[in-house]
């Protein structure tokens, strides 16, 4: 018998916390979003998304985030599968190896990619040493996408791996016993059973990729303007906090809509949980 009232009391400090540190700041942003710098009411900061510049950067963000998510998924699923099938005692150790890079500062790691990808960088030196033509990657959309894939790949691998490890192996054995070949088992059993992991992986990659601005600042060479960059620049460069807030509200709504579409795909019990 667990007394609901008494245990949910444990969440009280957190409820207060949410009110002060999550909801209240949102109202500040909203306040800025629906006023002019002079303080009168306006909706122009919200409708500003229809401006061609903002629309094109939002569209670019969506494209980059989408491609990033797909690449992450394609790269991560085999990794998770291999990890799952690995016949060693210490899988936890291998899994941790995917989180370990985060202990080196994020900006330094992206900076290292600059050194690797630049015109006379490490990659091109290797390419020309083995007689291949050099490539121009740094400061293009490709470089930004690569940086994002690099940054978010672990967020895709871990949830899929977790989902795979929850699958009861006997189900797969049963399928094999019933004559299903590897491919059928994979598509009919493994993938559907790991769907939760795939969905949360997609969310954990797509959402931050959509609003990211540091990667494009460092690897885009000022030529790749994502919606995150526009918002950041409204707050810093252009000093138009009202417009910046308006666009962030739009971005938030956009994220919420894509999440709810995702959640509709996910009909499992914990559908309300996003991560």
């Amino acid at each position, binding site marked *: 018998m*667990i007394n609901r009232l008494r245990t*949910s009391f444990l*969440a009280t400090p957190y409820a207060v916390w949410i009110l*002060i*540190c999550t909801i209240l700041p949102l109202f500040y942003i909203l306040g800025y979003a629906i006023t002019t710098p002079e303080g009168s009411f306006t909706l122009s900061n919200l409708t500003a998304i229809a401006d061609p510049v903002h629309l094109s950067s939002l569209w670019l963000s969506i494209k980059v985030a989408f491609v990033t998510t797909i690449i992450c998924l394609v790269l991560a699923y085999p990794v998770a599968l*291999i990890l799952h099938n690995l016949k060693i005692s210490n899988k936890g150790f291998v899994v941790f190896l995917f989180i370990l890079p985060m202990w080196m500062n994020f900006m330094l790691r992206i900076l290292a990619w600059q*050194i690797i990808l630049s015109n006379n960088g490490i990659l091109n030196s290797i390419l020309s040493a083995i007689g291949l033509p050099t490539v121009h990657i740094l400061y293009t959309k490709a470089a930004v996408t690569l940086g994002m894939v690099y940054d978010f790949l672990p967020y895709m691998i871990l949830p899929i791996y977790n989902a795979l490890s929850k699958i009861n192996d006997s189900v797969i054995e049963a399928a094999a016993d019933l004559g299903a070949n590897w491919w059928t088992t994979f598509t009919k059993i493994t993938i559907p059973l790991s769907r939760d992991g795939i969905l949360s992986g997609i969310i954990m990659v797509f959402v931050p990729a959509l609003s990211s*601005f540091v990667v494009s600042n460092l690897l885009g060479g000022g030529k790749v303007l994502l919606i*995150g960059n526009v918002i950041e620049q409204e707050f810093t460069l252009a000093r138009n906090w009202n417009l910046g807030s308006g666009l962030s509200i739009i971005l938030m709504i956009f994220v919420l809509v894509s999440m709810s579409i995702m959640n509709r795909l996910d009909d499992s019990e914990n559908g309300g949980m*996003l991560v």
Partner: protein
Amino acid sequence: MKKVKDTASYLYLGLIFLFLYAPILVLIVLSFNDSMSRTIWGGFTFKWYANLTSNDSIMDALGTTIRITLASSILATILGTSAAIGIHYMKKRHAAIMLGATNIPLLNADIVTGISLMLLFTRFTPLGEFSVVLAHIAFSVPYVIFNVLPRLQSLSEACFEAAMDLGATPWYAFYKVVWPEIFPGVLSGFLMALTMSLDDFTITYFTKGAGVNTLSTMLYTQLRKGIQPELYALSTILFLLAFVMLLATNFKGNSKKEVAEK
């Protein structure tokens, strides 16, 4: 056939690890580079490591980073764990509201979270180290909650009730039945909060007070003007420390297992 598949698997894993660790190798090499420029190899040197402890500004930033990271991740773990337990036993509708709100910091662009918190803090408290700790708790609590909740959900209530039926106090039953089950979630939540806090730049940048520098904010101002090579050295040390700690826990885990098998 099996062998080919295994080799291909290992090869693939190896490539992914190469992708993830290539930049880190580059940075480690840079920490031994005897040149202030990051694009020129000026010879091998240990001097950045030797100079490290005498560089006050870096040591200062390191201290601040450690204080902020530890304080925020410990507080976030306590707050988040108790919240997760509370939410788990809540009415479904209330829980949904709480979880919705919990998602907000995860969905918001960092810059929006950072600026909105700054707007809030400047009204009530002077910006300093403390405001950064608060901000870090704000964005890392969700990670703790979402690590602990699944553990609670997979927990069978029957065990807890059985323990109570056998005369255990709720606290004792919690400690003996629930806690061991959710502990891995709490631990991974804590580690995630720790990592997020350590790696954050945007939110720190907006909520910090004058003269407060974490390694991230320090790096940002130096990123463009050329980074003090001591910072490469420090990052290498931090990274290797984390790696060694990981190895150590791994071996400890191994030997425990061996004992258990005997």
